[in-house]
């Protein structure tokens, strides 16, 4: 029998501010962090979390990952002495792109006949976040990065859950980070027509025209449920299930009938041993692109059947834009806190419904969740990435 996986720690640095609670409270209150078509972590000062030397040794995506992981470790009650031998602790962290600011800065040096920095490779590599967290918190078990574009954060959490279920690790620090608001990344996404020309994130609205780039990091501490309970840990949620699939259809566009995404949702529900009608809330991928929001709506209908029309669905990206490889992790945290507060946070900016999109997208204002019999809220968090990567987490508040 597979081991139970629980979430004991969470941390987030997002455009809405420092801290997981800030993310939840501000989103639920209807605050939007998008300004001038971008969602930056303006309040993040690496010096608040890292020494000058540590900050210099880390690209911004790693700095964000380290700051989020510190909060997650603290909420898990690990500050001081971790409750497991280092060999039993893993770190599996996602990113979509890695240290692209470092790549751009060093390419600039090369173009101007200046020497490239010896730190260029250790800062730009996609696994730098996972490696830095492992060094900081002495994780000597399985440590690696997951790079599956905008599904990376969720796939990292899924991989972390699997590592605990199989007994490969007793605890895993997991999540995702991204800091790709750089000239090259912005130009590249714009060249793909992926970004909103108006700079507005309004998922599921008839006027949606692309996503808004965001940055940030989300970190979670997952533990073997039995060990966590034995040590008297505060348990925030259970990872009930995880499902993944690939469209194997197109490098950037989702399969338009939502089959691949529906398969991932179905896999997560089966893994969780939960029926669609028992899901109280869906945190959508909801990018605000014309293609995603239509395909995702079809996917939810395909996977949920009749229950699709009853489940509240909302998009965190309406408040913080698209955090790419961090999105799945930050949104899993938002989902956990929403489930614990028994509230469906709103899809902001949804004012003109698209006639083709007819689910309950919780427009404008948060709504109370009231599962039958007063049981814990069970929710899904969807994440889909370029490359056709689909990852879905089933999370139950505790």
């Amino acid at each position: 029998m597979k081991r139970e996986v629980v979430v004991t720690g969470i941390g987030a640095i997002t455009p809405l501010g420092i801290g997981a609670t800030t993310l939840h409270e501000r989103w639920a209150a209807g605050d939007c962090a998008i300004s001038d078509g971008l969602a930056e972590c303006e309040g993040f000062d690496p010096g608040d979390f890292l020494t000058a030397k540590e900050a210099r040794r880390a690209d911004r995506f790693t700095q964000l990952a380290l700051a989020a992981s510190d909060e997650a470790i603290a909420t898990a009650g690990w500050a001081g002495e971790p409750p497991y031998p280092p060999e039993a602790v893993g770190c599996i962290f996602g990113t979509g792109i890695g240290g692209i600011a470092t790549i751009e800065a060093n390419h600039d040096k090369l173009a101007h006949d200046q020497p490239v920095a010896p730190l260029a490779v250790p800062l730009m590599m996609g696994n730098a976040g996972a490696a830095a967290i492992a060094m900081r918190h002495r994780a000597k078990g399985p440590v690696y990065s997951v790079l599956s574009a905008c599904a990376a954060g969720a796939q990292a959490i899924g991989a972390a859950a699997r590592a605990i279920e199989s007994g490969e690790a007793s605890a895993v620090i997991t999540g995702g980070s991204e800091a790709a608001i750089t000239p090259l990344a912005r130009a590249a996404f714009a060249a793909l027509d992926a970004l909103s020309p108006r700079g507005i994130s309004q998922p599921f609205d008839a006027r949606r025209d692309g996503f808004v780039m965001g940055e940030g990091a989300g970190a979670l501490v997952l533990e073997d449920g039995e060990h966590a309970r034995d040590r008297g840990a505060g348990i925030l949620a259970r990872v009930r299930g995880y499902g993944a699939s690939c469209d194997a259809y197109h490098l950037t566009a989702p399969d338009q009938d939502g089959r691949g995404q529906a398969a991932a949702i179905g896999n997560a529900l089966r893994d969780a041993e939960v029926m669609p009608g028992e899901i109280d809330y869906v945190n959508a991928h909801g990018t605000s692109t014309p293609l995603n929001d239509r395909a995702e709506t079809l996917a939810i209908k395909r996977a949920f059947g009749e229950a699709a029309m009853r489940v509240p669905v909302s998009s965190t990206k309406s408040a913080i834009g698209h955090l790419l490889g961090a999105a799945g992790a930050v949104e899993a945290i938002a989902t956990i806190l929403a489930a614990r507060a028994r509230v469906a946070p709103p899809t902001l900016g949804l004012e003109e419904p698209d006639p083709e999109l007819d689910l309950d997208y919780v427009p404008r204002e948060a709504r109370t969740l009231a599962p039958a019999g007063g049981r814990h809220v069970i929710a899904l968090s969807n994440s889909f990435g370029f490359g056709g990567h689909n990852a879905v987490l089933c999370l139950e508040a505790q």
Partner: protein
Amino acid sequence: MPATTTPDQVEPVLTEALIGFGTPAEAINPDVTFEALDIDSLDLVELAQIVDERFGVELKTNDLKDIHTLGDLVATVVSRA
């Protein structure tokens, strides 16, 4: 590049680099070991790059293995410049 390179020219450049790496200025002196200053192999490679740029002295990984203090590094640079 001057005709002769003196310790007085080299030491301030390397001290400034170490401070830039995040080493507290008050901890730096010619005799304290790099290990005690938390200066590791990545920092040494960066120092070597600065030495090459500023003094035209190329230090390879093999040259760095016997350099344990700022004083060692200054002496090596001066002797090869």
